[in-house]
């Protein structure tokens, strides 16, 4: 039942959507398992969920899943961190300089839509087959979201809040720090979340393409060896990592700003 009277939803009301999602996934996994066991799907095309689950111990012990995760995690955080550090000032610039905003916003949007991963040969030439290529490409894939979301948040700040600051005689730097930035924070936090997810996708993708460490290389290696259960397990692990990133950033944002 929806909480329409303004009261906080109780535990059952809060748990219901999560439970519905988990049960749906479990039902799909059961269906998949049944279809595999009945022989409708060849296990060399798609392994059964139970086989995927059984592959995890081997992934951790033989394939160093934890170490690879830490490598991918580190590259992702570095890339996303750079995207945040560069994206917020750029977003502010496009907000502050109207002409620049009008001129370049669609370009940045275009960059967000471009399949940057296809440009990996160029980055290999520029940076070599090393972590720098992975970080540079992942940084560029997360940057547009960060720029656009920062600009969107700053553009959407209610004029009256800025006027309040001006009426108190705030200088531009204080106005930005005390009013514009907090007002734009929900949108900026969305940008951080998107930058993190896009960086993760890109890091794994480039690791896969150039065969250089991390979870991407693991997926490629398992695929080359036709160890499909392990490969699906590694893919599942990447998906779960992505979900965990998304959930954690949402919780952190909620913790910092409980009331918008």
């Amino acid at each position, binding site marked *: 039942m929806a909480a329409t009277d303004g009261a906080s939803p109780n535990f059952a009301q809060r748990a219901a959507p999560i439970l519905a999602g988990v049960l749906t996934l479990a039902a799909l996994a059961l269906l998949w398992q049944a279809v595999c066991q009945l022989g409708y799907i060849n296990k060399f095309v798609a392994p059964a969920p139970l086989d995927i689950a059984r592959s995890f111990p081997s992934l951790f012990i033989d394939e160093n899943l934890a170490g690879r995760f830490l490598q991918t995690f580190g590259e992702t955080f570095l890339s996303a961190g750079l995207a945040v550090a560069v994206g917020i000032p750029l977003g502010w610039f496009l907000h502050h300089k109207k002409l620049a905003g009008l001129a370049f916003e669609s370009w940045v949007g275009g960059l967000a839509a471009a399949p940057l991963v296809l440009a990996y040969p160029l980055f290999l030439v520029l940076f070599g087959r090393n972590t720098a290529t992975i970080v540079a490409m992942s940084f560029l894939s997360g940057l547009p979201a960060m720029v656009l979301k920062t600009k969107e948040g700053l553009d959407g700040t*209610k004029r*009256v*809040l800025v*006027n*309040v600051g*001006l*009426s*108190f*005689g*705030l200088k531009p730097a*204080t106005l930005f720090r*005390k*009013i514009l930035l*907090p*007002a734009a*924070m929900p949108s900026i936090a969305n940008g951080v979340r998107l930058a993190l997810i896009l960086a993760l996708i890109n890091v794994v993708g480039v690791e896969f393409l150039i065969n250089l460490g991390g979870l991407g290389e693991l997926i490629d290696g398992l695929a080359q060896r036709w160890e499909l259960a392990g490969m699906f397990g590694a893919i599942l692990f990447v998906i779960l990592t992505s979900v965990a990133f998304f959930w954690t950033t949402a919780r952190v944002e909620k913790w910092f*700003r*409980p*009331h*918008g």
Partner: protein
Amino acid sequence: MAAILSVEGVSKRFATSEGPVHAIDNVSFAVRSGEFVSVIGPSGCGKSTLFNIIGGLIDGHEGRVAVNGEEVKGPHRAVGMVFQEESAFPWRTTLENVAFPLEIAGMGKAERLARARDLVKLVGLEGFENRYPSEMSGGMRQRSSLARTLAFSPQVLLMDEPFAALDEQTRLLLGDKILQIQQQLKQTTLLITHNIAEAVQLSDRVLVMTYRPGRIKRVIEIDLPRPRSSAVLGSDAFGHYVATVWKDLREEASLGLSESEAALGHRH
């Protein structure tokens, strides 16, 4: 008593896509220390433009605005503004909102929170110090904004239809609260409004503006006894003042209505 706020020959024109608009023309008046003055006029008469000019938020006007003889050339330390739109910072609690100008001024945390608590109490929000704006009603949010502006200790409090978005009963009760605060602080106040009853209930003087371009058509002294409350609404004298203001305003409001309807007709 000497004028604390003086507005002399202020005019403002705006360039719009439909040609230049002469918003206000040669507006002059003065507000004495401790006085409560309302500016009333029909929609589109330039009331908010005047509010923004006095607050120093827009420039490029003719004439002069001065506070204590010092010309206003931008946001001024002596002028505190309460806006028509909800302006409480949604990421701050009531107490943090009210303490905001003190924080900007560099006041120590303990001192500014103590001062903010006093003002929260003054506007009747005691017990709601730790609530966020989203957890309060529109009237409470406007009181929080009022307290925040009062924390700035302005010499002139400038309010632009602060109760416009509220229902009539809340508006009357907040009017009582404004009267009580004005009585207590002897706060010089300039209220921009389109509500005749509100203007008469609160003011020592009401300045009636013409429709575009906005000019001061008439100044009406409100000689109702103070301290006042919304109980004054039932008196004959109150009715007389409301009728007097409306007599002047009706012609202007009709003009405004005709022009806006004609403009709508042209568009279709």
